[in-house]
């Protein structure tokens, strides 16, 4: 079953002579429970595609369906609510809120949705899954980059999203930390059937994913 359907997605930055075509018409389906890597050279449009899929930006043309819902027709507030409930994000750079503890960072998105205190237990469970149960009361500047990224992953999962988006999540990590993060993604995908769409430029990351979508100059080069 397709969880994401993209139809002729285009993104143009600027206008007229200065227009830059980041995406020139992408059509793509992603299955529920699939772990997909979007790869390509710098400037190929992979991050742009992820931002559009994650409703962080709007395309110039085209359609995006998530579970058969045309998400580009959502208003600003509806889009925010959709991101909160249905989508999870792991960013390239450490994206935790500096003033919150690791635990508070993880349960922050759940605070908006849940009136009971279950969000706290859920956050602790997730921190156990990512191996940070001992660091939950630390602040982001008190843990390593790899640990921050694992906390980001836990945060992205706290509302049990349908899709997890990761934008080069290992770009700023050393090899060992990157391996831990990627293993974690694979485990989430295999054990929890979590749909994951990850942008990466590391060829060796291919071994963790079900499918690679190669982008070149704003177009899909081939499906591997």
């Amino acid at each position: 079953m397709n969880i994401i359907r993209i139809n002729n997605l285009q993104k143009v930055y600027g206008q007229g002579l200065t227009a830059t075509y980041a995406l020139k018409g992408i059509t793509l389906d992603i299955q529920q429970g699939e772990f997909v890597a979007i790869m390509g050279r710098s400037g190929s449009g992979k991050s742009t595609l992820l931002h559009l899929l994650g409703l962080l930006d709007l395309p110039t043309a085209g359609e995006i369906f998530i579970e058969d819902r045309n998400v580009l027709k959502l208003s600003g507030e509806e889009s925010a609510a959709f991101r909160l409930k249905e989508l999870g994000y792991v960013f390239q750079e450490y994206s935790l809120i500096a003033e919150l503890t690791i635990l508070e960072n993880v349960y922050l998105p759940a605070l908006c949705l849940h009136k009971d205190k279950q969000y706290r237990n859920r956050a602790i469970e997730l921190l156990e899954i990512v191996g940070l149960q001992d660091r939950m009361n630390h602040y982001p500047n008190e843990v390593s980059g790899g640990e921050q990224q694992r906390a980001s992953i836990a945060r992205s999962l706290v509302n049990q999203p349908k899709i997890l988006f990761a934008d080069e999540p290992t770009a700023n990590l050393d090899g060992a930390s990157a391996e831990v993060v990627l293993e974690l993604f694979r485990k989430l995908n295999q054990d929890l059937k979590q749909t994951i769409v990850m942008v990466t430029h590391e060829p060796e990351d291919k071994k963790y994913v079900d499918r690679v979508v190669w982008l070149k100059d704003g177009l899909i080069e081939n499906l591997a």
Partner: protein
Amino acid sequence: MGNLKLSFFLAYKSIIKGNRWTLSMIILVMSLSFANLILIPSLLSGVTEAINGQQIDTVYANIVISPNPDKTYLNHVSQIENKLSQQSGVIGVAAHLNSGAFFEYNWLQKTSPQDKSQTGNWNVIGIDPEQEIQVTTLHSSLIAGSYLETGDRDKIVLGIEIAGGEDASTLSSLTLGGAKVGDRVRLTFSNSVQREYTLKGIFKARSLSANTLAFISRNEMASVLNTVTEVSVFADRASQLLVRTEKGVDETQLISDIKNLGIDGQVRSWRDYGETMGGVVSSFDIMGSLIGSIGLLVAAIVMFIVIYINVVHKKRQIGILRAIGINRSVIYGSYLIQSFLFAILGIVIGGLFFGYGLMPYFKSYPIDLSIGLVSLVIDPVNVRNSIGGILVAAVLAGIIPVVNIVRQSIIKAIWGN
């Protein structure tokens, strides 16, 4: 958790775990802005009060009773004085019997009647010295000689701007040119009566208008004026009655009470009577409002810059909050609460600094200006406006940059573009 609670949670964490230095700077700016907002108008209020104080102490007292427009004098003054003295809140009553006069000094040395040097026209006030001491303070501003006493008939006391000399600020040609205690002065009153007086004392008050007054005894003035009308009538007449009140007395109420006594005259506050000085005071009030408004604008701009820099530093964080689906209203609420709290802390700390630092300092060391000793006088309306102004400025300074950032694309905010 509701949006408001989440806003409070984010604001609380931001303040508790935020940069202490930034937080301290913001609160310091807020505190100083608030203290400054109160300080300048309070200083001007202090100047106004000093001017008022001088006018009350030296020229008008608190309440002035003058004849109705169709009359020149108040009659049956002793009866009125008795009634006034029984009024609660009245410290003293002084009757003034006034006349204009042409003053001459060293007239015997002049060779020509056309020589007008060391002469001038001034007002002479006939006073009962014992009464006057209870109502005005000029007797304590003597720089030479002594004050009038009951029974003095050929004695005169002059303000420094009439006597002239080194201590006068008026041009020498517009004074008597340096009359000294013991010298003789000749006065030709407006009814052509001419008399000579010995200069008994010279006073120099902080009020320029007081320093152009001359005093003789009321009995003497009555005798001057009596020469052209029925004998002894002027003994019970007055040009004005000055009423000195206790501190803190409700003057409006007292004026109303005095009016109810059925006095045949006009009862007014010194402010209404001395309209010229009222104008000066009004000008100070306008100046205070103007400076206060500019101060508020400057404070608002400073706060805006400080809070704006703080918010812009959190641009990426705002982008991340939006990316993970946190509602805009939560983000607005969080920064609004922070700005509001900064303003409250600024008002409290600034207020404490003002109340327990600046106020006692100025009370102990008032500024010595020519118009008097100036200390700070708090105007509750100004304080209320300043509090309101600081709160509004802080809220705008907090919310405008956040609205700008939230209106940007999430990607731009996250990447800090």
